[in-house]
């Protein structure tokens, strides 16, 4: 039973790792830079492992969600500024995910994506309203495994693996590209791998599922095995784009283009899986971001939150979730291209990251809270190195955005 639980958690973490941000950024960067930026995805994955391990441990030991603790450690004023920034980024990501589901459904049905948006938003709300937390999480994660179609396509392309690995381990900026754009996309990939909502969701999910100290092993296995395997999936998206799109000079601007290598190499069945994977991954992430909008506000103000109680027991939480879904769907319905929303949301994720990373790092060291489960020396060394990286990426992101005109 324990093995089953661990396996399920790992599979969920793999399928749940990829969202619209990873799909778009990896496809776009792979088509333009090959695998020469894969190091940024690897770096972001190590970062999200550290970050999720800390916040999962904090959730299991204290039973408190991320924003509950952010306010305690930063005070109400900085905590509120933090809440506003994180909420806006999460809301933007929610809009991108809803748009992603709609775009994937458009590819499957050729019905315009804008017609899908209200339906998707309603269905999201219905699931959040009615379905048990663990079913939501596991269902979306498992279906998201259909994205393994990218791995299958990569295998069918019979690439020269040596040369791909060489591109990853000895990164080399393509000669025609400018260095500032190269680093701009490095930050985008980093932000796509290390999205703040993943951690709000992960830690709040730990509280929802009533983790205790005993669950720490399971939590660690989920993170330390599941996330790196999920990152392999991200890299296979970039590799497919590198092999098929880059030689043809295709600049990625749509979700359809990102799936073309799979069609080209692996055929109709793989494409069917791929579209299922697109829908599941973005829908799952939309559930997570929608809930995270509610979690963050409710936790800051101390309201009852969570799906472990009846909706009427957590009325303000459910109202925030409902309004966030309406707002995000509204943003997509303005016909702003969801792929563009995604490109900005991953960069703003990188900007907002230190705001929640820092308090979690402090709390996971707090002897009053954590007792013997506080960070060890090795953990703290790694976490401090990442604190510096995250701050540098955050500070550099917006100047680079202006300088490169968002990567042009």
């Amino acid at each position: 039973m324990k093995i089953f639980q661990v396996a399920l958690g790992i599979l969920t973490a793999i399928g749940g790792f990829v969202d619209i941000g990873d799909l778009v950024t990896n496809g776009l960067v792979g088509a333009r830079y090959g695998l020469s930026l894969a190091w940024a995805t690897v770096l972001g994955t190590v970062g999200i492992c550290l970050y999720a391990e800390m916040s999962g441990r904090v959730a299991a030991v204290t039973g408190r969600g991320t924003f509950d603790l952010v306010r305690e450690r930063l005070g109400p004023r900085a905590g509120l500024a933090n809440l506003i920034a994180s909420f806006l980024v999460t809301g933007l990501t929610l809009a991108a995910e809803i748009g992603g589901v709609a775009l994937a459904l458009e590819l499957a049905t050729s019905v315009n994506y804008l017609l899908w948006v209200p339906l998707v938003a309603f269905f999201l709300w219905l699931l959040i309203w009615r379905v048990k937390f663990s079913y939501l999480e596991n269902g979306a994660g498992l279906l998201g495994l259909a994205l393994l179609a990218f791995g299958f396509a990569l295998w069918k392309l019979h690439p020269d693996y040596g040369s791909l690995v060489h591109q990853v381990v000895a990164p080399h900026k393509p000669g025609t590209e400018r260095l500032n754009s190269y680093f701009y996309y490095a930050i985008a990939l980093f932000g796509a791998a290390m999205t703040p909502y993943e951690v709000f969701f992960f830690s709040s999910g730990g509280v929802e599922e009533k983790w205790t100290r005993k669950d720490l092993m399971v939590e660690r296995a989920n993170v330390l095995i599941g996330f790196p395997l999920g990152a392999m999936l991200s890299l296979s998206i970039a590799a497919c784009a590198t092999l098929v799109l880059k030689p043809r000079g295709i600049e990625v601007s749509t979700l359809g283009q990102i799936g073309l290598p799979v069609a080209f190499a692996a055929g109709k069945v793989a494409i069917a899986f791929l579209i299922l994977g697109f829908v599941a991954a973005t829908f799952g992430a939309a559930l997570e971001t929608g809930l995270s909008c509610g979690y963050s506000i409710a936790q800051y103000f101390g309201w009852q939150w969570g799906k472990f109680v009846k909706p009427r027991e957590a009325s303000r939480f459910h109202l925030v979730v409902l309004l966030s879904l309406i707002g995000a769907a509204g943003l997509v319905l303005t016909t702003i291209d969801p792929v563009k929303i995604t490109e900005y949301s991953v960069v703003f994720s990188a900007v907002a990251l230190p705001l929640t990373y820092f308090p979690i790092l402090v709390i996971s060291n707090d002897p009053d809270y954590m007792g013997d489960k506080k960070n060890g020396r090795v953990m703290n060394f790694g976490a401090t190195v990442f604190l510096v990286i995250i701050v540098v990426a955050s500070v550099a992101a917006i100047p680079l955005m202006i300088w490169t005109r968002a990567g042009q």
Partner: protein
Amino acid sequence: MTLGRCRRLLMFGALLAALTSCVGNAATTGAYSGKAHLSAEAAASALQTAKLAVDSSAKGNLFDSYLEIVLSQAEDDLGSVQQQFDSIQPPNTTEADRIRDRLDTLLTRAASILADIRITARRDQQAAMIKTAAGIPALADKFDTFAEATA
């Protein structure tokens, strides 16, 4: 964060949007040629996308709905490239006029090919679609040559 700071943040956001958008005037022939270069690359990308989709479909590897969406998005991409390029005011030099004429011709041909492919695809005339798409590599090469000349 005070309200004043919120307002400043909004203004900053608007400024950011303005700074990262791309249309504008090209004051020199060099700048104009640079924009033409980017437009040519984007147009070649749209053509190659259509070609890749048609090739996949010809192998029986792609659903019709997926094909149609990719084709119409490629056509939209090309349309916006064309529209953006046309909206740039070229500097008053013969070199700039030459660049403009050349790229306009290429863009018009690309638009017509993509429209033909879309039409044949929607009519399920697969043979005609494949035949039209066979013209893409030659045209894409012309865009590439143009892009290299304006780099």
